[in-house]
Structures are given as C-alpha cells and as structure tokens.
C-alpha cells in the first residue's frame, strides 16, 4: 500500500515541466526503437531483418524460439543457403534451406527448390498448388546470423497477449513515475 501511495503522491507532485520531460523521454524511447528497426531494414535490404523461428523443421540447427538475422543482397541465390520465403496463400514466412538452383542463361532468373533439414521430403507440398519452384520474388532474405532463445519473448507475447499488455503498462508506468 505504501508504495502505491508514494507513487500517487509523486504523480500529484509533478509539475508541468516534469510532465513534458517525461512525455519527451517516452517519445524518445519509442522513436529510437523505430529508428533502429528502420535502420536495420535499410542496412540489410530485407523487409523484416529479424525473424523468429516458429517450427522445428530446421532442427537441430534452429529450434523454435531462435532468432535469425536476415540479409537481402543482390548476390545470386545458391544451394545450401538458408532462405526465408513467402508462398502465395500463406501468411507466415518459412525458413528453409535451398537444395536445388537453376539459373537462366539470358535473364538471370532463378528457380529454387527448398527443404527443411529436419523434414523428410522437399517443400513442393508446402508451395502453392502446382508450384514446382520458388522465384526470386518469393524470397525475403537469407539467414546470416543466429541468436538462440531470444525469440521466445515474441512467441510468448503473441500467444498470451495479456502478458504483452501487462509489460507495456508496467513500462509506461515506470517511465511516467520515474524522477530524473
């Protein structure tokens, strides 16, 4: 009780100048997060520079909850690379390894076939009906770096939204009530 009472007092005792400072610092936190994300997008050239692994199809290399850093350069796609791709009609992108590449002589376009390391067969069953190959435009990026476990934060937050709201609320309260 004492802690809450103290907090209420501290909110009451705030002056306009302080309120403004708090608002600015809250804004700074939000915008700097945005700047980092957009900056990463520029550097990596990928529309989502960081992805969380959601399935076990690449085990034991990547487990559920691991984080991958993507890079999308002009370099051609080659067999063995781990790419993140979108299939028409599927919302969630898939992280799998390229096992076949056919690159055109004239246009430089590629036909790519992928497979999950832990899956028995290739990905033709996952592709859109009748689709045999992935093209360049399906591919969002290739995985270049790896960080274990960190993605669990996102998985927990998407599966239990209540935790997300509690966390955001608590952080917001902390920023508002903190005295510099």
């Amino acid at each position, binding site marked *: 009780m004492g802690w809450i009472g103290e907090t209420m007092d501290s909110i009451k005792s705030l002056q306009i100048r302080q309120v403004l400072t708090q608002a600015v610092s809250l804004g700074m936190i939000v915008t700097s997060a945005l700047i980092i994300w957009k900056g990463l997008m520029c550097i990596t050239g990928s529309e989502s520079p960081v992805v969380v692994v959601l399935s076990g199809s690449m085990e034991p290399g990547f487990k559920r909850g691991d984080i991958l850093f993507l890079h999308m350069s002009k370099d051609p796609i080659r*067999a063995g690379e781990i790419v993140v791709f979108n299939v028409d009609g599927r919302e969630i992108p898939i992280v799998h390894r390229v096992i076949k590449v056919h690159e055109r002589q004239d246009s430089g376009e590629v036909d790519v076939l992928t497979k999950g390391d832990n899956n028995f067969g290739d990905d033709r069953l996952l592709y859109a009906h009748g689709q045999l190959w992935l093209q360049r435009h399906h591919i969002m990026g290739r*995985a270049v770096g790896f960080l274990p476990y960190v993605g669990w934060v996102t998985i927990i937050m998407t599966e239990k939204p209540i935790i997300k709201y509690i966390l955001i609320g608590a952080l917001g309260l902390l920023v508002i009530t903190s005295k510099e």
Partner: protein
Amino acid sequence: MHSFGYRANALLTFAVTILALMCAMASLSDNLNTPSPTAQVQVLNINWFQKSTHGNDEVSMTMNISANLQSLFTWNTKQVFVFLAAEYETPKNSLNQVSLWDGIIPSKEHAKFWIHTTNKYRFTDQGSNLRGKEYNLTLHWHVMPKTGKMFADKIVMTGFHLPAEYR
C-alpha cells in the same frame, strides 16, 4: 534514487550487455580458426539414366564420399551441415545446382566420415541436356554457430562425365 526498481533495472541492463558482448566475442573468435578440410568423391556406378515423362533427364548414381571436416569445429560450433551438389551448365541455364546428398554433423568426432550412398535427392535436369554432360561435384558445408555469424565454404571436384546414352 536508489529504489528497488532502479537497482533491478541497472542489474538487468548490465547482465544483458555483458551477455551480448560475450555472444559477439564468441562469434568473432570463429575468425581465428583457419580450417583445412579435405574431401574426395568417387562415382562408382550410374544405376540408371533416362528421360522422365515430363521430358527431363534423370540419373541415379552410386557414390563414395569421404571427407575430413574436423578442422571446421570450434568451441562456438553447434553443427556442420554438409551436402554434395552436382553443378553444371546448360544452354538454357548458366548454373544448375542439384543437391545429391546431405548430412548433419553434430560433433567433431563425427566430422571424419566415409559413406557409400546412392543420391538421396533426385538428380533431375530442367530439360534434356544430361547426355555426355561434364559436371562438377562440389562438397559444400555450412557451419552453424552456437551464436553469431554462419560460415560457408566448399571444395569443388571437377571432371565428372555422364554417359553419352540413356541406360
């Protein structure tokens, strides 16, 4: 000023920073390793070679693959993914890469191996260009770290030929 919240915050920030720094250093330390892997592949037999109903050439072959990839392993290595790809050029395609066999090496003890196998994935061309085709067999490997940057490299073995006629 020295409330519980501030202390918890400072501790958490410090812990995360140190952890991130350690991860970065572990990843950077991989650069100190200069691996010297070796590999050898023999094509023992062409089991069959035909044109499929879609008009694409397809081959089945038996191979001997031996390699020593032990030098790729460092303390930050989780596993090495290794695969053998047939690579060739056709009038239509400037590069064809077809994975024939792959495997996951979980530890250094398993990194020196010898395997006698038929191709695990179908060796199919886009079209009908494989008769008498000269191709390379390339052993690729992708090193997956415990944390940080992934590495990849390859050994190219040249001078393989497919038979001039279907069989």
